[in-house]
């Protein structure tokens, strides 16, 4: 079943008030990022360095993965490898089952979302509680997160209030964010204290030291890791960086790009387990090695999951994360996901005006807009672009290649559009014309005017 982003976006936009509010909320996060970027004089040098570190690492990824594994094992961390989502889920469940763990707390991990871990574990009698507040909200609502950093950005506080009234017994009509966060704190504390295991993702895995870093504002990952005797971290293979010193570059960029903070409240480094506890890492491929082999698209693997591209994208802001039908939405989602299933996600590279704003804010300088354009060419060559586009593009090419035909067509269009009633004009101007006015048609084309002028004054 193909994802029709346009249709989903139209549904989102039908509620104009909500769309305007969503747009403004995301843009505000973008402006906070700008304040940060402007206050760091070496911002562009940081981006260049981060990009170069990531490109180097990806060019030697197998070596860095082996180095990470060797050092992690030396630190007493168990390392597992999963080719795909199914293997990842089975491995995680296996570790939990062997430990007799049935109540799990999980901090934000888009990778586990990608693998569909929650339903897999729940079907096997394991209770999984997402502890990031935004994730817990959407989990209680049975929804997917709509943004990789702010999972509940699409919800108004009244809606959160309703959800908490239904599931946490808060008073009906309570919509005060402080009170709601307070209710979640009490509710989730019970879960932390009773947890058999903590599942996390990782923002970075350090090859030279065999450890990994988890960044949060809420302290949910740290509480989970500190209390439960078993910690499992699911890490995509592209998260590896060479040295601990590289964290200086990435941690200076990450939170500034994501939320406009100089750093997240907690940047936690794990290099082993305390006595009597265990730490496991599951390294996951799930299509990353395939993307790595794509000359045109491997640079998308530099992504550090900050979400800045989503915050700035005019399409994302005005269509919402759910309209992409993919785990990761927005510009980065639209260059990562088509590689998984080109037909299903054919509409995503077209969910863009190619304005390039995403490329401008990406802390690791992924050429997002160029990759979106290249995916469009792949989609069209494969025949998933839609017949209408192909027919129109072919017709346009024929006219543009023939100047006399172009001139006659232009003259006809100018004369006709001037006299056509507006309803007919709208009908002919496609999706663009539905909310835009066509410009006033001039009496002459430039060429006609030029010839007339030259004729009048001599050449």
């Amino acid at each position: 079943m193909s994802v029709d982003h346009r249709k989903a976006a139209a549904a989102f936009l039908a509620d104009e008030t909500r769309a305007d509010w969503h747009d403004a909320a995301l843009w505000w996060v973008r402006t906070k990022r700008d304040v940060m970027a402007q206050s760091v004089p070496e911002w562009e040098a940081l981006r260049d360095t981060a990009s170069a570190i990531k490109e180097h690492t990806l060019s030697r990824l197998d070596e860095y993965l082996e180095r990470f594994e060797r050092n992690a094992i030396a630190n007493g961390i168990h390392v597992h490898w999963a080719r795909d989502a199914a293997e990842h889920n089975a491995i995680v469940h296996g570790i939990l089952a062997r430990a007799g763990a049935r109540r799990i707390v999980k901090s934000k991990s888009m990778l586990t979302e990608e693998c569909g871990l929650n339903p897999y574990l729940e079907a096997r009698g394991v209770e999984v509680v997402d502890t990031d507040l935004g994730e817990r909200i959407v989990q209680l609502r049975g929804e997917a997160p709509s943004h990789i950093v702010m999972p509940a950005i699409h919800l108004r506080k009244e809606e959160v209030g309703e959800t908490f009234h239904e599931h946490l017994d808060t008073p009906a009509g309570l919509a005060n964010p402080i009170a709601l966060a307070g209710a979640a704190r009490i509710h989730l504390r019970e879960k932390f204290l009773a947890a058999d295991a903590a599942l996390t993702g990782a923002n970075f895995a350090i090859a030279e030291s065999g450890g990994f870093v988890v960044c949060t504002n809420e302290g949910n990952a740290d509480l989970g890791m500190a209390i439960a005797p078993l910690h499992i971290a699911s890490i995509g293979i592209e998260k590896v960086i060479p040295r601990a010193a590289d964290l200086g570059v990435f941690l200076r960029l990450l939170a500034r790009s994501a939320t406009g903070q100089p750093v997240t409240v907690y940047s936690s480094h794990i290099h082993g387990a305390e006595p009597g506890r265990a730490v496991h890492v599951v390294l996951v491929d799930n299509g990353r090695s395939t993307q790595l082999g794509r000359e045109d698209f491997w640079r998308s693997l530099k992504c550090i999951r900050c979400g800045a591209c989503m915050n700035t994208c005019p399409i994302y802001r005005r269509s919402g994360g759910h309209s992409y039908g993919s785990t990761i939405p927005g510009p980065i989602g639209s260059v990562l996901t088509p590689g998984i299933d080109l037909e299903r996600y054919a509409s995503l590279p077209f969910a863009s005006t190619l304005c390039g704003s995403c490329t401008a804010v990406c802390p690791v300088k992924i050429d997002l807009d160029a990759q979106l354009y290249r995916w469009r060419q792949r989609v069209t060559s494969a025949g998933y672009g839609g017949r209408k586009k192909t027919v129109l593009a072919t017709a346009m090419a024929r006219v543009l290649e023939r100047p006399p035909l172009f001139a006659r067509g232009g003259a006809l269009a100018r004369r006709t559009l001037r006299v056509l009633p507006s309803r007919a004009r709208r009908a002919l101007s496609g999706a663009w014309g539905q909310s835009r006015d066509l410009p006033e048609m001039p009496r002459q084309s430039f060429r006609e005017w030029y010839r007339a002028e030259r004729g009048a004054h001599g050449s």
Partner: protein
Amino acid sequence: MSARESILRAVRDARPAVEALPSAVMRPREVAQSHHELSATFVAAARSAGADVVETGASEIGAVVQAIVADAELGAFICDGVLGVAENGAVWLPLSRLRDRAEAFLADHVVIVLDREAIVADMHEAYARIDPRAEVFGTFMAGPSKTADVEQSLVIGAHGPRRVTVVLRG
């Protein structure tokens, strides 16, 4: 073939041409900041992150900390920071300084004692001085826990400590 072998082989076959690894050490600032300037920057950044900052001389430290603890309604967790980062108000706290991780993160109020001279300018300098691998756990803590997940309204105090006081000594 194991999953490990399969993945490594796939990566080896797919990887793009080798790019050089740049230094992660950014060009040092032209003018080295004095301790006074560094701690002023740190104080501003820590406050901006929602922490309280109290500056005190070495001799009064005991009394100051006692007063904060006495004031704390739900108890306080006291620890010594290794270093502070001026650009973001974070303090490096390895496990040895936290003693009990669970207690540190369950506490309502965390009090971090930090030497003024242990403040560095930025994360690059911080990583030049610490060895994250030396202990199984270490964190940079910048202020109290927070969330903006309910309609982008900033709420101080999410799951971790709701209050952080940094006591700057010296």
